[in-house]
């Protein structure tokens, strides 16, 4: 055991810092041009545009420590916006279960950020109980295509997506976990209707997606018919790890301290307020521990293990920490956190603090609610039975 970075890792860290500094966005320049250029240059570094992809598919083949360094450095720098759906959620499924033809067809566009994907998992009656999904895919008599009917819900960014990867039911005669099939479906076609859902913070990011008699060619099926539950489960573990957001919370905590220091209290600032100070301290302690829980998980991943039950610990702790940062932002805003609408009032950060807090309430619901994560740990780690 050693807590310090090796000299190789230190070298890597400075290379990453150099890269991020050299390619920072210049205010006023064309954002989209910078974004695409950034990914191109990152690729030339040796697969830095797809850090989590295996070497076989063009990834950098980093050690866990290198991944950790990358997360830390990029959380503090301005990097171009990116979406996880194709890159981190679909790509691993294609790499593990897709045909070579599917890999060649879809992975390059995902890597080039040319195609936006969304995830068709949850349904109105399949939330925490995802296996209860009812969207049907019926194989045509000539065996050339599936006909898909059903409704997906909470579909993030479906309104800008080109494709959706969907869990569908091809057989309902057995256990719920059987008869689930993984299909890739273009969004821009007849029979697909996207309805916005406005959430607590007032934002439109999730949707309801209705599929009516949508024809999907069989070559768009990933893996075997009826076996997709296994594929999806692995994917959910990846999703959970990604949702913990530890590096981002470390940066957010520093920002929160700066904001609190700008709120005057008597001769000092809110940072001198004993109860606020204690809450910040408790948060920091939890974050320090969770940071190392993540590192331990990375280390076991390096030994070749798939993300397992520890991904549930990270999701639980990580999302609760993110919520606490948001809550303390609202508390720092004091009376001004209640202000809503276009006009900033009072402390600058208070504007947006409340909508951030409200939006954060979803963190312990999506990607497997906290109650479900605790069930996973109880069952798979502690060996407790219902």
């Amino acid at each position, binding site marked *: 055991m050693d807590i310090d970075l090796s000299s190789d890792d230190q070298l890597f860290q400075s290379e990453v810092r150099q890269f991020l500094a050299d390619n920072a966005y210049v205010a006023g320049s064309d954002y989209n041009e910078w974004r695409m250029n950034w990914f191109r240059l990152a690729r030339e570094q040796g697969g830095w545009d797809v850090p989590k992809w295996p070497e076989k598919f063009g990834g950098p083949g980093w050690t866990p420590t290198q991944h950790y360094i990358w997360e830390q450095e990029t959380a503090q720098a301005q990097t171009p916006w990116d979406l996880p759906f194709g890159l981190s959620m679909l790509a691993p499924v294609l790499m593990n279960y897709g045909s070579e033809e599917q890999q060649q067809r879809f992975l390059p566009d995902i890597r080039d950020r040319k195609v936006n994907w969304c995830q068709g998992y949850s349904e109105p009656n399949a939330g925490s109980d995802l296996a209860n999904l009812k969207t049907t895919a019926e194989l045509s008599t000539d065996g050339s295509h599936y006909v898909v009917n059903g409704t997906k*819900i909470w579909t993030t960014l479906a309104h800008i997506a080109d494709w959706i990867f969907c869990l569908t039911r091809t057989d309902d005669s057995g256990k719920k976990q059987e008869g689930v099939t993984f299909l890739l479906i273009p969004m821009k076609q007849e029979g697909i209707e996207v309805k916005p*859902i406005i959430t607590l913070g007032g934002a439109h990011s999730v949707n309801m997606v209705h599929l009516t008699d949508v024809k999907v060619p069989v070559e768009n099926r990933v893996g075997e018919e009826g076996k997709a539950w296994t594929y999806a489960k692995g994917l959910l573990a990846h999703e959970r790890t990604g949702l913990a957001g530890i590096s981002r919370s470390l940066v957010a905590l520093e920002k929160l301290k700066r904001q609190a220091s700008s709120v005057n209290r008597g001769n000092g600032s809110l940072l001198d307020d004993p109860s606020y100070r204690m809450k910040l301290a408790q948060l920091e302690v939890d974050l320090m521990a969770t940071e190392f829980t993540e590192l331990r998980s990375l280390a076991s991943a390096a030994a070749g293990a798939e993300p397992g039950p520890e991904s549930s610990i990270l999701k639980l702790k990580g999302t609760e920490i993110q919520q606490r940062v948001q809550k303390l932002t609202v508390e720092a805003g004091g009376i001004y956190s*209640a202000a809503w609408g276009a006009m900033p009032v009072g402390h600058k950060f208070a504007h947006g603090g409340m909508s951030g807090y409200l939006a954060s309430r979803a963190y312990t619901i999506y990607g497997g609610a906290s109650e479900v994560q605790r069930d996973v740990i109880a069952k798979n780690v502690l060996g407790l039975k219902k």
Partner: protein
Amino acid sequence: MNFDLSEEQQLLSDSVARFVSDQYPLDQRQLTVLSEQGFSSEHWQTMAELGWLGASIPEQYQGFGGNQADTMVLMEQLGKGLVLEPFFASAVLAASALKYGGSDTQQNEWLPQIADGSKQLTLAYAEEQARFDLHDVITRAEQNPDGFTLNGHKSMVLHAASADAMIVSARVTGAQTEKSGIELFLVDTNADGLTINAFPTVDGLRAAEVKLNDVSIPAAAKLACSEGGFNVLNRVAIDGILALAAEAVGAMEVLYKDTVAYTQEREQFNHPLSNFQVLQHRMVDMFMEYEQCKSLLYRATLEVVQRGDEAQRTVHALKYLIGKNGIFIGENAVQLHGGMGMTEELRIAHYFKRLLVIDAQFGNHDYHLAQFAG
């Protein structure tokens, strides 16, 4: 000891409950939220006609002469309806300020108009640097031969844009955080030099930043406040906290009951969610915290009615518990509703937002716990 409502209080409670169930469906409320004024003039008139606006105003000024316990009964029911009308600003805050600080002439002029709804008033007490301290006042009132000139900036003034007048706390003498030297002034919202920058709050109500730039008012616009401006303001804040706490208790009741109902309907893993013990226990906690808030609300209200501002410490305890438990109940109502809890479609979202705003008004839970601890 007796914690039962009197016959009059029961009638009042029933009448507000009926109004809420008849006049306040969520879809209608959300349309009103989007209107420019942000509340319904028709409802305002109804509230005047039914005597609610004058519930705590003495009978000699055409009110019903009720006390904080009567206001509690009213506010708890209004809280269940998420009512948008400026009842709290005008019939609680401004009415209390005039009751405790107004001269006979001022009371004669204004209280009957608050009671019949013909005038809508509000209280401008908060300032940015003060955070939650009522005695931290920079806004100045300078005396001159004709009266006073006011200069300063008041924050988060409830319903200022639709108000006819506001009662403003300003400093006549003393340093920024001294309790002495603060006085209250009645200022017409049309006064020269007064600017109102209005905006909605997250709960759908309205507030404003108010700037006072050489606003001239006559000497008669200063509230008499024989016990001192700060003491009056503090008593108004106590009434305000009691009223907000009652409203919050009403909102919490809706949240825990809606959650219990939803988990009985919603099935996952072939069972209603309500069958899962972990969720049952969470709802038990929500229910217990609601009951605790209600108990402390009764305790604080009755202490204030019978012992006045000797009950200050209990009022701090109440505002702490209401803020903390309101957020606990709101967050768990959302969590147990799952994705649906995140939508604006269900009413729980709106009750949760109201509880968040209530925590931030007249001092949040941390502030009052610190005051309570002393």
